[in-house]
């Protein structure tokens, strides 16, 4: 187990003889009290496992998420839009790195995490298995995908694990320009020429469903929800977060003059919520299981990047070791 930092053992005997059951009770009390759990504290093994799973998949999603958007950097319609898109993609790399660091505090190492992604063992968000077919897709991603991510991440920032919660706060701050960038693109296209308006509408038509799905299965169907909610890893259910996203986004579409591609969409005056039609969960599970339009390409692109970067890592390590030897021989 990778140790972050060294510790000196002052543990008094009384604490050392607490039973697992007693520790679990104490742990749950901390959670219920709204206290944050930090890396070196005792935690149930499943708490650690759930967090490693969630945080690492979140990290993988950020890294893989760079690919569909990176696809349009060379074809951005203006220099300003190119610079903005570059900055967004750089942010996603940074977000992935914050999250890998947070996952590592739980006793898993970076190489294992990387291997899990590259071997297809770990999942990443289903949404990134879709292609970006036009410039408007970049707008749709910033508006809808980052929009949904913000609603989810704002909720996760209230979670119990310190490093993950702090990473969420940092990410949410940076994500808000992504959201505005995307909406700006969609709004301008929707209010542009007929061809631009159609391009925006087409992108919305393709990205709406997957964005709704990306917030995860309904609670009854979600296998991890009861543990993650008991321990405040998740603070609200997928359905609650999904509804919040819908309620915020529909008026944004209306303001842009775009049509949400859902014939069953209607506003409920009593509940004051926008109600959507049935979600295509079959599509979600198909894509998660590897049968989306781009799953194979995403994985092979990441494998290729890892392989092509190997000489850089080797060179850097070789240089560091050489310098180290020099230092040691001077000191000796």
């Amino acid at each position, binding site marked *: 187990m*990778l*140790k*972050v*930092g*060294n*510790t*000196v*053992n*002052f*543990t*008094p005997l009384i*604490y*050392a003889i607490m039973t697992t059951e007693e520790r679990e009770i104490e742990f749950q009390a901390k959670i219920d009290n709204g206290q944050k759990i*930090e890396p*070196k*504290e*005792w935690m149930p093994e499943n708490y650690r496992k759930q967090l490693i799973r969630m945080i690492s998949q979140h990290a993988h999603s950020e890294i893989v998420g760079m690919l569909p958007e990176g696809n349009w950097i060379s074809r951005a319609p203006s220099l300003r839009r190119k610079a903005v898109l570059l*900055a967004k993609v*750089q*942010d996603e790399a*940074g977000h992935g*790195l*914050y999250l890998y*660091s*947070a996952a*590592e*505090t739980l006793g898993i*190492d*970076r*190489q294992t995490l*990387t291997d899990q992604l590259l071997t297809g063992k770990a999942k990443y968000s289903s949404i990134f298995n879709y292609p970006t077919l036009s410039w408007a897709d970049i707008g749709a991603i910033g508006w809808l995908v980052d929009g949904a991510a913000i609603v989810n991440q704002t909720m996760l920032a209230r979670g119990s694990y310190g*490093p993950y919660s*702090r*990473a969420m706060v940092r990410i949410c*701050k*940076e994500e808000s320009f992504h959201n505005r960038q995307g909406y700006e693109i969609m709004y301008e296209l929707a209010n542009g020429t007929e061809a631009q308006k159609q391009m925006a509408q087409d992108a919305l038509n393709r990205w709406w469903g997957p964005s709704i799905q990306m917030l995860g299965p309904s609670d009854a169907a979600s296998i991890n929800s009861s543990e993650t909610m008991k321990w405040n890893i998740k603070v609200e259910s997928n359905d609650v977060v999904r509804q919040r996203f819908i309620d915020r986004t529909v008026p944004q579409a209306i303001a842009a003059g775009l049509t949400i591609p859902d014939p069953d969409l209607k506003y409920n005056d009593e509940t004051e919520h926008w109600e959507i039609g049935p979600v295509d969960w079959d599509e979600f599970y198909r894509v998660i299981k590897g049968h989306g339009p781009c799953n194979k390409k995403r994985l092979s692109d990441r494998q290729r990047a890892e392989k092509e970067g*190997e000489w850089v*890592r*080797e060179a*850097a*390590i070789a*240089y*560091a070791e050489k*310098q*180290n030897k020099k230092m040691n021989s001077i000191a000796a």
Partner: protein
Amino acid sequence: MNVKDISDQGPLWEVFIQSKSGIPHKHAGSLHAPDAEMALTAARDVYTRRGEGVSLWVVQSNSITATTESDSESFFDPADDKVYRHPTFYTVPEGVKYL
């Protein structure tokens, strides 16, 4: 002691950022880098894209010694019953100023 990471990611470093002159460096997170110079540039790229800092420290994680949660109570205990370290423990006679 130079602990070798099992991968070619390089050792783990903790990053501390000073957001402006005069205030302490604050822990921001961690990263992997093969040496100190790369750790510093990586820290700049990963943790200060919004001008978050005027100064960065990177420290190899295994150079840090920390208390653990289970130690905390007994380790910090001695300070808990010394209320006389706080100014509020003392009564100042009425009318006496600047104490």
